[in-house]
């Protein structure tokens, strides 16, 4: 079973087309293994990016060095997944 311990989802808001292009370039860097949950579309429209724990420093550095604003939408993906499983089990009981 794939675990997502420490993975975060970042909510990113690009301010212009150049930043959108930078985000797309970020998404194409296979070694980071990021996963756009919501793709960057237009300036001011949020994009959501799941970032594996091991890639968090690199991705956050990339965003900050390019002045791309972001917030942490989900602190720890695995915690939410565990909660979801607990809810399903409780519902079954």
């Amino acid at each position: 079973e794939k675990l997502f311990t420490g993975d975060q989802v970042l909510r990113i808001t690009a301010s212009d087309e150049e930043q959108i292009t930078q985000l797309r370039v970020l998404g194409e860097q296979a070694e980071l293994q990021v996963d756009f949950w919501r793709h960057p579309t237009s300036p001011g429209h949020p994009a959501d990016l799941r970032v594996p724990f091991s890639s968090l420093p690199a991705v956050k550095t990339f965003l900050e060095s390019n002045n791309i604003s972001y917030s942490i939408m989900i602190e720890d993906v695995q915690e939410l997944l565990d909660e979801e499983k607990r809810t399903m089990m409780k519902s079954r009981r």
Partner: protein
Amino acid sequence: KERSTSTFDFASYHTIDEIYNWMDMLVEDHPNLVSKIQIGQSYENRPLNVLKFSTGGSNRSAIWLDTGIHPREWITQATGIWTANKIAEEYGQDTSVTAILDSMDIFFEIVTNPDGFVFTHSSDRLWRKTRSINAGSPCVGVDPNRNWDAGFGGPGASSDPCSETYHGPYAHSESEVKALADFILGHGNVKSVISIHSYSQMLLFPYGYKTAPVPNHQEMNELAKKAVSDLAAVYGTKYTYGSIADTIYAADGTAVDWAYDNGVKYSFTFELRDSGRYGFLLPSAQIIPTATETWPALLDIMVHVLEHPY
């Protein structure tokens, strides 16, 4: 196992076995309205089950609904279950539903990508694609909403099998896509395709593979405007709307573009809600609110289709 649709917990997420059992129960509970048909098999040989809502007639005009082509979008399949139940319950009660089903059939595929859905329960909750093996690549699966024969292989899809938006080796390479396309073409009288996703809060229509407007763009835009307005009236959830290319980005090989190009004039795709905190992990407590607010928008489209025959 649940023994009746009346005791089924619509406010919880369910496994594929539970959903398929529930579909059988719905058929048992509404034998004169609902039947189940199998339109094909998935890559891993799971049945592709479709609920048919029909009050009779032969090859009537039809509305196609599907949920869950991207399996990790769990709120979508859950909304599909609630909606199918609502259609069955409202026939004979609600004037709009009754009018629709007195003239038209509704086909509803609730688990459009069963292999992927099972995989999200067993191995990777965040899986998006099918589970077909890609020759020469260690990466599994094709994005089934980039696999349709509508601008296939162009911008907005990836040729890399390891990408989440991999379009596949050729159009309709995925059995889940081919079965659906063959069904719609074989039926020949499908007037509307509504393909439901999550979670960007949008109501979209063709095209995604080109920026040119569809010939009835104004009609689609006005209908979408009314639908999202009626949706927002329930809980205040704000949707954007418009063509895929204008509203999100260029996306090739999508289901609704294929449907439109194959003569289905009223082709829409929903992106259901997230309030901005959970994404694909939307808590089950939000299933019923999501389905409830989506219902009037769906009904708007279906009534429009009924009232605008072509």
